[in-house]
């Protein structure tokens, strides 16, 4: 990246061994296009769409997205769905216990691990809620925790109801 957008700079960059050239100030579209050129189009697919995808309406679509993230490995997918049904309730219990204890550090840690776990599902809202609680713990500002936990509990239960239907074994 360079703030020198003058003519000839691009050639100089490429000559000196750079693979590509993006002028500053950064135009996100141009930067993504440059990244896509060198990652076979994967870069822009990593940018969150901002959509609150949920498992509720389209388990098939969700399954396809999860499977794609696992490189199409179906046996690994089955294993993740099985593990998720064990880990998600366990991590929620740990988080609830941490919240009951009022210990900000425990809350931060429990929410952090939960955030990592639900990250595998690709359900943005779940991950965002876990992250909110993690940061409330980190900042020792626990006033919003009960509301966030209530929504997280509700959404987690819905996901747990749907998880078995994602499994190919059920199909």
């Amino acid at each position: 990246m360079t703030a020198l957008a003058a003519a000839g700079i691009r050639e100089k960059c490429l000559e000196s061994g750079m693979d590509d050239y993006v002028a500053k100030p950064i135009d996100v579209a141009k930067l993504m296009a440059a990244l896509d050129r060198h990652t076979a189009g994967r870069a822009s697919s990593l940018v969150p769409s901002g959509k609150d995808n949920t498992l509720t309406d389209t388990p098939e679509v969700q399954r396809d997205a999860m499977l794609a993230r696992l490189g199409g490995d179906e046996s690994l997918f089955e294993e993740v769905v099985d593990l998720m049904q064990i880990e998600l309730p366990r991590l929620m219990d740990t988080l609830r216990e941490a919240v009951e204890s009022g210990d900000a550090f425990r809350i931060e840690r429990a929410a952090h691990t939960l955030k990592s776990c639900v990250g595998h599902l690709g359900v943005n809202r779940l991950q965002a809620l876990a992250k909110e609680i993690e940061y409330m713990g980190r900042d020792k500002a626990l006033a919003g925790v009960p509301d966030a936990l209530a929504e997280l509990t509700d959404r987690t239960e819905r996901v747990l109801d749907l998880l078995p239907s994602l499994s190919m074994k059920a199909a």
Partner: protein
Amino acid sequence: MRILIAEDEAISRRLLQVRLGKLGHEVVVTCDGDEAWAALQAPDAPSLAVIDWMMPGMHGPDVCRRVRARADGPYVYLILLTAKSRPEDETEAREAGADDYLEKPFDAADLERRLAEGQRVVDAVAGGAERPIPARASTG
């Protein structure tokens, strides 16, 4: 090659184990920082490690610092994994001595590229090359 993984979250741990196994690596699995540090002190310790940031016991950067504090110890290429995403985290990772820094959820192909880079460095050091000094954040 032998690769150590340290990850407390069960699904991430399993995914790493399966991915690395499929790439033909022998995986040493640990579930927290203390176990990872113990495994890195073993006589047959792996020379490449993928270590999660926030774990029970020692955190990832602490493990990195301990590895780098061993002046005469065996060389280890360190990749820190993190679900944290604050800009200052990468600086802390580098200062702790990590060679690379990868945010979760990561792309399998990206992990593969970074492992290949790690393997290149490990092979070079084994062949007598000077140990790379992890990039430090600028203090100026």
